[in-house]
């Protein structure tokens, strides 16, 4: 298709969570725990929590 300059490609997962928490840092801490315990597998994956916003 003519995209000759692509040197690498990687597909990842994007998981959007809506969390009911008193504040952003609590929500972030809970999401970090979920990411560590179930959402990611540390043997093959790493995660990043990109944003915490109120609706």
């Amino acid at each position, binding site marked *: 298709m003519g995209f000759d300059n692509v040197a690498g490609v990687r597909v990842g997962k994007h998981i959007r969570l809506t969390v009911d928490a008193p504040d952003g840092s609590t929500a972030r801490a809970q999401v970090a725990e979920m990411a560590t315990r*179930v*959402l990611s*597998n540390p*043997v*093959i994956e790493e995660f990043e929590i990109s944003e915490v916003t109120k609706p």
Partner: protein
Amino acid sequence: VNSPRIGVITFPGSLDDRDALRAVAAMGGEGVPLWHAEHDLHDVDAVILPGGFSYGDYLRAGAIAARAPIMTDVRRFAARGGPVVGICNGFQILCEAGLLSGALMRNRSLRFVCENVWLRVETAQTCLTADLTPGETIQIPVKHGEGRWVATPEQLARVEDQGLVVFRYSAVDGSLDDAYDPNGATNHLAGLRDRAGNVVGLMPHPEHAVDPDVGPTGGQPLFASLFSSALAQVAG
């Protein structure tokens, strides 16, 4: 002679639970169906986690099943030495549960593989290989899309140093080469055990290899080993 009671767990999306029960019966054992949502192993002497796509393999293969209610009981059973065997998706579940090291990734070919393979037995110190001799080869089919075993450098060093590899994909004479490895697994690993040897996971399907009318019979000595381990467990 007592026939061992072998539990086979059905998760939503398990496919090979009936074949596993059938193989247990064909080999002279008593198959006991177990249900993922229960906290009851029905006093079985060994547990099989069968192949399939538990919970649709959403998130990651085996990830949700590893956190199913019955896994609490499987963990307890394994901790006191009970034989636990994970086949294919069951192997993925045991890795996700932390009962075995590493993880299973997409095949190197990016294609689903379905073929008979040869396995070289690496150790007899497991509930699944007690009747076999290290170095001998057996033929068993594989059928999977995510069977490439990988591990962190620390896990890999521990697995090799402690002799935890149970099977490697090989030629019929036991020689190793990428050509004999259907998924590109690290060090051609096809099966893995825990330190004690009572928990074993493997990608190939011994339950599809017990009936000479439909293919190879490399699964027979594995079930025989599992039965003797299960009965020894009862005696102990």
